[in-house]
């Protein structure tokens, strides 16, 4: 049962973690395209899968954010990953399963999943 007590516990944990957390400019940013084209292609479950996995693995250094149309509608759902000091990685045609792999390989362990990148799709 999800209770308001659980929410207070989350607040306390977050408040402790936020003091230790890196500034936003030093965190990894995962940007999900959420325009009509992305939504129609399945971007909503992709975004919620990132949120679920980041929460489950407690990846404090990762921020998940949304943007509009990235301009490559036929490859939606599209996600861009910006890591400080590294080149942008663009993942395309994502599914919930692919997201799990990207989180465990790339976000948690720093290994880009080449097979899902735009380079592999073209």
């Amino acid at each position: 049962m999800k209770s308001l007590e659980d929410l207070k516990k989350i607040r306390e944990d977050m408040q402790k973690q936020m003091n230790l957390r890196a500034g936003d400019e030093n965190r990894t940013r995962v940007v999900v395209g959420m325009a009509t084209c992305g939504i129609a292609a399945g971007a909503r479950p992709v975004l919620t899968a990132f949120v679920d996995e980041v929460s489950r693995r407690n990846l404090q250094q990762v921020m998940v954010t949304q943007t509009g149309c990235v301009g490559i509608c036929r490859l939606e759902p599209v996600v861009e990953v910006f890591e400080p000091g590294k080149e942008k990685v663009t993942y395309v045609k994502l599914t919930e399963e692919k997201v799990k792999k990207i989180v465990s390989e790339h976000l948690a362990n720093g290994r880009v999943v080449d097979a899902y990148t735009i380079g592999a799709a073209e």
Partner: protein
Amino acid sequence: MKELALNILDIAQNSIAAGASQIAIAVRESMAADQLTISVKDNGCGMEPEFLAKVTDPFTTTRKTRKVGMGIPLLKMEAEMSGGGLRIESKKGKGTSLTACFKRSHMDRPPLGDVVGTLMVLIQGAPDLEFTYTKETDQSAFQFSTAQVRALLGGVSLSEPDVLVWIRGYVEEGELELL
């Protein structure tokens, strides 16, 4: 769109784009009347009457620049194809209220889908706005509001993944208790 929940997401994004600070989403399911109604209300910038008259018309909308306007005409078409219809009221400077109504048992009615997933995505993208979500049946109702959660979070953002996961669980459990 494959599910009405995705139309709700698209329509509520219009409200966010319109600068709303409050967005109310409601889903009403009546077995007695064989009706499914979804509504999105906002206090955003609203529309002028002349623009409002055009916004539900696919022909007028498609003739404008290519980028403009499929979200509302699409939902209108889906509602009309399943024995229902769409109504929009809007006042410049006050806000907009959109209601789509479907015959619940109609063969062509799209499934409702994951409305809670839609809510999670909306809050994730606009954590400082106030959303309310109401789910109503003939017998009972469940309501969720971000204001209620915000008050307990003491400055922690509603876009924190742990908070969003909690919200999903909380709303799903509340809906399960409806009959």
